């Protein structure tokens, strides 16, 4: 088999024999395996801690984005109430972009959970293989001549070595993924620190002007929104869309409940 799998097999096998060469006698492989297992176990523990940390961070970001969704929703309502439909549209576009980002985060959290589980499973499997090797070795020693036992133990050692290499590979890949996600989480954090968190919500392609307008709109609302509400109520007789919104569910200045209502 020469293709992708053939090439991959060759690389893995080279790695396994390198791994096993360190134990000079195949029967020493057991001891070597235990030692390697302990190292792997340490790595798994460290890796799991990394995975959990990365997961928590992503969950925290996810919460922030959810707040952002509520905020943008409120802003859209305010813009609409102010009769600025275009602005409301922009806010809604951003809201949808943030929601996309949220979905991406959720997928990553799920993926990290998967990684966590497979690391635990792989570790358990390696443990079974090493136990099997231990008992098999004794049986082989009792049943075969020294030379033949050497060969058979060598075969079994290859099985254990392959499992070790595979657990190592799985671990490496899980950690690489976690690292990537951590880098991404960090990038988002840095954006936020630089005051550019709003930029993240501009994936929908908003201009700075609009953002400033939105800000003015929401900062001025403590007094203005009351005013707008009144205006809208007054104008309700005219049947404008601003009137509809304003009389029905104009957001409180804090903006909290508005998102809840829309969701």
């Amino acid at each position: 088999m020469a293709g992708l799998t053939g090439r991959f097999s060759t690389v893995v096998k080279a790695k396994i024999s390198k791994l096993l060469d360190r134990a000079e006698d195949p029967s020493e492989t057991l001891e070597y395996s235990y030692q390697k297992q302990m190292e792997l176990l340490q790595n798994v523990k460290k890796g799991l801690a990394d995975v959990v940390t990365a997961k928590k961070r992503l969950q925290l970001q996810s919460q922030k984005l959810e707040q952002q969704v509520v905020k943008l929703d409120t802003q859209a309502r305010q813009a609409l109430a102010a009769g600025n439909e275009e602005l409301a549209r922009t806010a809604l576009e951003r809201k949808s972009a943030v929601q996309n980002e949220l979905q991406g985060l959720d997928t990553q959290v799920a993926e990290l959970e998967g990684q966590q589980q497979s690391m635990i499973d792989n570790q358990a499997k390696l443990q079974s293989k090493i136990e099997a090797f231990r008992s098999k070795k004794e049986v082989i020693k009792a049943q075969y001549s020294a030379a033949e036992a050497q060969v058979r133990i060598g075969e079994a050692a290859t099985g254990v070595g392959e499992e070790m290499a595979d657990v190592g590979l799985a671990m490496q890949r899980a950690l690489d993924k976690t690292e990537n996600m951590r880098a991404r989480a960090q990038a988002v954090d840095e954006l936020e620190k630089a005051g550019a968190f709003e930029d993240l919500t501009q994936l929908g392609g908003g201009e700075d002007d609009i953002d400033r307008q939105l800000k003015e709109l929401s900062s001025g609302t403590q007094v203005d929104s009351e005013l707008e509400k009144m205006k809208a109520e007054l104008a309700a007789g005219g049947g404008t869309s601003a009137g509809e919104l304003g009389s029905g569910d104009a957001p409180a200045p804090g903006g909290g409940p508005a998102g809840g209502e829309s969701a």
Partner: protein
Amino acid sequence: MIVRIATEGQYRLADDVVERVNALDNEAVAAVEAGDEARFTDLFGQILSLIRAEGAPLPEDELHGSDVIVPPPDTSFEEARHEFSGDGLIPD
């Protein structure tokens, strides 16, 4: 024949299944060389499904080296290309 899906586990496959895997594998290589990511993803998925569906998982207390080792299921197209350029999927 014993086949391992890297990071997943070992399966015992009948010879005719191995031949089908081999055929798909060659097509996957052609897809990688042609830079056709969608086709590669599809074929690689077929290889994995075939092994999982037709292969008998090796019991955990059995110790055998694999005849063939299939790259990890989460292998990306980029990684598959590196596999050919010589970098490989396995860190040293």
